[in-house]
């Protein structure tokens, strides 16, 4: 199925990219502007809890992906039903990632170019990378993530002349219900998305380090997102809430001398590479899961057709920016919860109850 192996550090970086990608351009800011750092920490805590559940599951069934685990625990019919629903969710995630980034491009830089031009070229490269396997995806991710982190940290220094700490005041200006609702949203998007790695954990060289690698990745992503929030809120202030892409807007404000001005294109393209990695991981996970579901020998023939389907789904489910926002803010928390939390939790409980996996020697 997949011959490649990745190291735990590579997995950490994959998790980081996956979590950061959409979080960078749709930061968890809406409604909680200067307290967003709080919701971010809230989301991180929730994401770690989610991660603990499915990594426990993966450690309990070493060498099996979530798809195989569902089938072991629930039997072939119910297990397959759950798997199909789960795969649909990941498929949707990939479509969402590409749709959001293409929307970013078409609304800011390339306003006259049709969306299909971007999505088709995107999918071609994504399919090419996906067919090379998880090892190559992890390797490609390394320099891209490094450049992104470097750019964001560097930008912190470039915006020092615009940065106003008073933009964060007053602290704690938020009611508990607001915090809970916003935090809940941050848990499911982006931190809960790491359930995807339940399909990738078995390809780790040091299997027992999988859990710590995922949690480190979540922490790293939260740190980078925190810095980007600092930049966005500190530079834009309360008025930033009217922008669709606040991070983009914050980068746009950079003004140093006559030379370093209007640099927004560079971070945009950089976030684009993160989105590309995210979409590719999702496409890979869907192809791999489908191949395991149908007991195929290899996932590679599935990549191209699934990629085309993903492209169509991206256009169908995210026709414009309004739908994407509505989806992320109101629908996603409830829509994603079963796949991120309930299904793994249920599987874990049933597995404990049924005393699975059956060890050798027991009958």
């Amino acid at each position, binding site marked *: 199925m997949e011959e490649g192996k990745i*190291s735990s550090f590579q997995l950490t970086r994959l998790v980081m990219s996956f979590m950061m990608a959409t979080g960078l351009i749709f930061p968890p800011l809406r409604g909680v502007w200067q307290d967003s750092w709080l919701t971010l920490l809230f989301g991180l805590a929730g994401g770690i809890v989610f991660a603990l559940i499915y990594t426990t599951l993966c450690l309990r069934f070493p060498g099996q992906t979530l798809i195989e685990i569902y089938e072991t625990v629930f039997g072939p019919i119910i297990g397959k039903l759950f798997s199909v629903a789960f795969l649909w969710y990941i498929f949707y995630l990939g479509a969402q990632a590409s749709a959001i980034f293409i929307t970013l491009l078409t609304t800011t*830089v390339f306003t006259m170019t049709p969306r299909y031009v971007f999505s088709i070229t995107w999918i071609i*490269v994504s399919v090419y990378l996906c067919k090379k396997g998880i090892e190559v995806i992890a*390797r490609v991710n390394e320099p891209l993530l490094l450049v992104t982190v470097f750019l964001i940290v560097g930008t912190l220094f470039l915006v020092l002349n615009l940065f106003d700490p008073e933009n964060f005041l007053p602290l704690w200006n938020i009611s508990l219900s607001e915090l809970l609702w916003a935090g809940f949203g941050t848990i499911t998007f982006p931190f809960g998305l790491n359930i995807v790695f339940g399909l990738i954990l078995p390809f780790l060289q040091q299997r027992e380090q999988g859990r710590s690698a995922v949690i480190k990745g979540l922490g790293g992503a939260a740190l980078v997102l925190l810095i980007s929030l600092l930049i966005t809120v500190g530079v834009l202030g309360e008025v930033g809430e009217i922008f669709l892409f606040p991070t983009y807007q914050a980068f746009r404000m950079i003004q140093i001398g006559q030379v370093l001005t*209007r640099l927004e294109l560079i971070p945009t393209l950089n976030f684009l590479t993160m989105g*590309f990695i995210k979409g590719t991981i999702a496409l890979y996970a869907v192809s791999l899961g489908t191949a395991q579901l149908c007991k195929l020998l290899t996932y590679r023939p599935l990549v191209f057709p699934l990629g085309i389907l993903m492209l169509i789904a991206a256009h169908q489910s995210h026709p414009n920016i309004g739908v994407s926002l509505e989806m992320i803010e109101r629908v996603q928390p409830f829509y994603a919860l079963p796949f991120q939390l309930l299904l793994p939790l249920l599987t874990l409980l049933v597995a404990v109850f049924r005393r699975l996996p059956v060890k050798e020697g027991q009958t």
Partner: protein
Amino acid sequence: MIRFLLRKLRLARHYKEIPTPLADDSLQKNIEKNIALFRAELGESPDIVIRRFTLKLKKEIKAAIIFVEGLMDQQVVYDCILRPLMLEAKKETRPVGPDLLGFIQENLIPAAGLEQENRLSPLVAALLGGDTVLLLEGQAAALIINTKNRENRASEEPDTEVTILGPRDGFTEDLRTNTALLRRKIGDPRLVFEQMMIGRRTRTIVAIAYVQGIANEKVVEEVRARLKRINTDMILDANYLREFIADAPFSPFPTVGFTERPDVAAARLLEGRVAVFTDTTPVVNTMPALFIEAFQNPDDYNTHFLYATFIRWLRYLAFLISFLLPALFVALTTYHQELIPTPLLISMAAAVEGTPFPMVIEVVAMGAIFEIIREAGVRLARPIGQTISIVGALVIGEAVVSAGLVAAPTVIVVALTAITSFVVPTQQEIGIILRLSLAVLAGILGAYGIILGLLFTLSHLASLRSFGVPYLSPVIPLNIGDLKDVAVRVPLWAMWTRPRVIGWHEPRRQNFGESAPPSSAVEGADLPASRKSKGNKERENLKK
């Protein structure tokens, strides 16, 4: 797609039986019959000389030597074969036993290499390799006497890899000279050469070289297996082998390294690589190959390490410029003018004003013209080649701008690209492909096109392996320890380990800190006791 076509081709290919040598081609006792056998095998070519004479020991014996004129050394044939057998054998008093050939081999012929053989095909092979064959009446075997002519052009610095400081020798067309050059660099007795013959008709001798204990046995075995798998009729140059054994035959990136310099080959062998020498060519293949090799010039190790690091960074920058600048220029001027600082934008707009073509066409066309000028300059005789360059560069570049056909910034960009592309010569071929395709992508999709092109290239590069080693290592996957010879060039005494991905069998070059130079000018003034004693010991050793 390409694989599919190849499969079709394979089906359509006509197999023709390759004539196999006769099962029984042993020599006979009659010398005339043996000579006839050789004649039948070699034909009547005038360069094949059969010299008959009579050997006078106790009784007279008919004898003959066969050699190929030009391949053998006249002096050796005279001194080691004809003189002893025709003149000095008469004075021989020792008893000749029943084994006449053995007696001659042991007592009469003073040549360095001697061998008995009774089958025709190895005899013919040796003959065509420059050896001389001695036939005797009444013997069903022959002697192969090593008379190979080692005359060759002198070893001189290769034009392709020039250094400012450092040794001036280079490999030549002769295999033995090349192996000797390498032996002179590496005194270690564990430097091993393994020879084989590849090419049914060219019968080219190929030698695998590696240092036992440092090189990975599995890589050596893989090289051996891949070379043995080659079944073709001609190997004329090192690149013939390279294309047969490369990991990614369709990739434009070279996954087998090559060099013409003995010092480079020696350094690579001592890092744990394997070298493959090919007779009749001065180019030596080395494997596994890394992408980063192209940036490691031998001069880096012959100059001060700070300067070498600086130059290496310049080289990386030049490589980036060489394939990225035209695309960036097209994208910036066509799609993202807001990124250009305003004063620069105004002067550029003034220059571009009035030129008839879109920027992407200008850049691609000027790039193509440059490549044509370069190709013409390389192929022509040297004095004319320079004329072409001057005509092409000055006249066309100047005239095209003043005629208003192409904007002046375009010419600057293309010229800069051209210069930078020569900084990293081994990646030059891939530079051309990347440059043109990225420029076209930038013309279609702007910066998004460039990013997509780069992502595609990165995906391809990250998937490449050369004999099991990731092509982009040690950068991807990252190995911080190995960045000592990639991101910087640390002092040679601080290169404690070989590159991990290649030389992990025997990673240690020298003990940690032991061979560092004394840190104080005053001898041993503030050194810790252990360092002091070691430093002194070294100095004493040096005095001896």
